[in-house]
């Protein structure tokens, strides 16, 4: 299903705080997460044991999903993090971190681990 991805700063899901004070587990719990409208939650036939796979031409991520009435239908919101930025894009030499068209689907696959992302980057070194 096509959605619009918006990454946003959230005080309870703050990457600087997690990196400074958290553990790898809390980092993943608080940042490998997205928020969608409850109506979309139903449309996607999501249940608490399922994750959301969000993808575009750039990459994909698998993150935990939570319902949030404040998010409009058709939008998936993610806290700014290494997870959300796998999907952000460069357009005309500028960064686009909001209004990104993505595909979303429910999945049984586990959330993408922080180490997995870092390892993918280190391989290129």
């Amino acid at each position: 299903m096509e959605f619009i991805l918006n990454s946003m700063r959230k005080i309870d899901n703050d990457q600087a705080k997690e990196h400074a004070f958290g553990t790898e587990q809390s980092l993943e719990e608080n940042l490998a997460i997205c928020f969608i409208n409850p109506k979309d939650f139903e449309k996607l036939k999501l249940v608490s044991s399922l994750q959301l796979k969000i993808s575009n031409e750039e990459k994909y991520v698998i993150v935990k999903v939570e319902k949030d009435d404040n998010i409009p239908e058709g939008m998936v919101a993610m806290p700014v993090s290494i997870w959300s930025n796998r999907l952000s894009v460069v357009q005309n030499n500028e960064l686009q971190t909001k209004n990104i068209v993505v595909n979303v689907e429910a999945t049984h696959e586990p959330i993408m681990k922080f180490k997995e992302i870092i390892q993918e980057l280190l391989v290129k070194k």
Partner: protein
Amino acid sequence: MKRFTCSGCSLLCDDIIVQSDGLFISEVIGACLKGKERFDLVSAKNRIISPLIRKDGELKEASWDEAIKKAIEIIKNSSIPLLYGFSNVSCEAQDAGIKLAQKIDGFIDSNASICQGKIFNKAKSLGINLTTITEIINKGDLIILWGANPAETVPRLLNKVLFSRGKFRMTGREIKTLVIVDPIKTASFRVMGVRDLPLIIEPNKDIDLIRMLKEECCTANSIPSQGVAGIDKNDLKRLLLHLTGAENGVIILGQGVIQPHPDYDLVEELLELLQMINKRQEKGRISLLIMGGHFNMAGFDHVALSAYGVSGHLEFKHNQMVKTEDTLVSKIEKEDFDSSIIVGTDPISHLPHSLSSKIAKKPLILIDNHSTATSHIADVVLPTAITGIESGGLAYRLDQVPIELNKLLNPPNNLPSDEELLNQLHGLLNKGGSE
């Protein structure tokens, strides 16, 4: 107990009360959650207090001599280094970073260039004046948050500009109207009262609203009955009345408005609207405030402007500044750099993967005080004191007002300040790279 300035965010609150014996901080009064975290950073679990070097693929603790030697080796083997970050350090460190960039023929840029700096430069070119926090407290009667969510990014901003009583606004909140334009009902909406105007706009439709307002302000006299961009006609009428009737309005712009679009420039259109309103305004004016996250996001442009007459990024060749069409993003995208020196920021987390993967490929020196995604990728990590707590210096508040930050504690392990470390690298390179 003493009054202290907080470096938790770009608001640089100077009314925080701190109790400290010079060794520990025992009490912090008046700080928000972000401010509290800044003070807690002193003893944070993931604080880095010893240098690290990558050996056999693993980051390992190293002596300062070893780490500095490795950093110098990376710099000397690099012909086009990229220096980036500098929004979480003092202006003195920014100046030292620019001098280092000049010495090593580097390209230097700050976080502001991918954030609020974009609005700052456009406002400057259009001749739009920015306002100050004090001005809004004293005179503001209309506050518009457009694509900005200060409740979660600059938490005390609304306390100061919306709830406080100013010299000419003694009734405070009662006569101030808050308008929020955002596609998401963010935490900032929670402070809204009955006379405020919450405008939930359809995603990516800000341009339709701005163009309608521009037309209404200057030529036409009708608002479409179906509304615009998901905003109802009556709300649009109220918005127009506020915009054209405010004595001292301010539009606070956030990250939501700086997204690129192939067909238009949203910031430019929004600033043109502001100019139109001000031309039409008979009794008042609308001004601008740009939100930034990091505590000295605004500083780098001021330092670069004072030192080289250019705001934003700088490029050096043969130790001289050269004109460049490049930006941070184009440099990384073209891979027109062969190493990077990252100062007080985390590009591996906050840049798109297409760019962060290119940074990760090249040798990377990180100067920072705590663990980040970038520290996991770095080849050398040089830890520094926390600016605004363990070292002092100048910083520019989000309204471009310079504020002096003070030292409260000595850093652990006698860590150098960012400025001292950057100057040390510069000094060693002057001497050929060895002490």
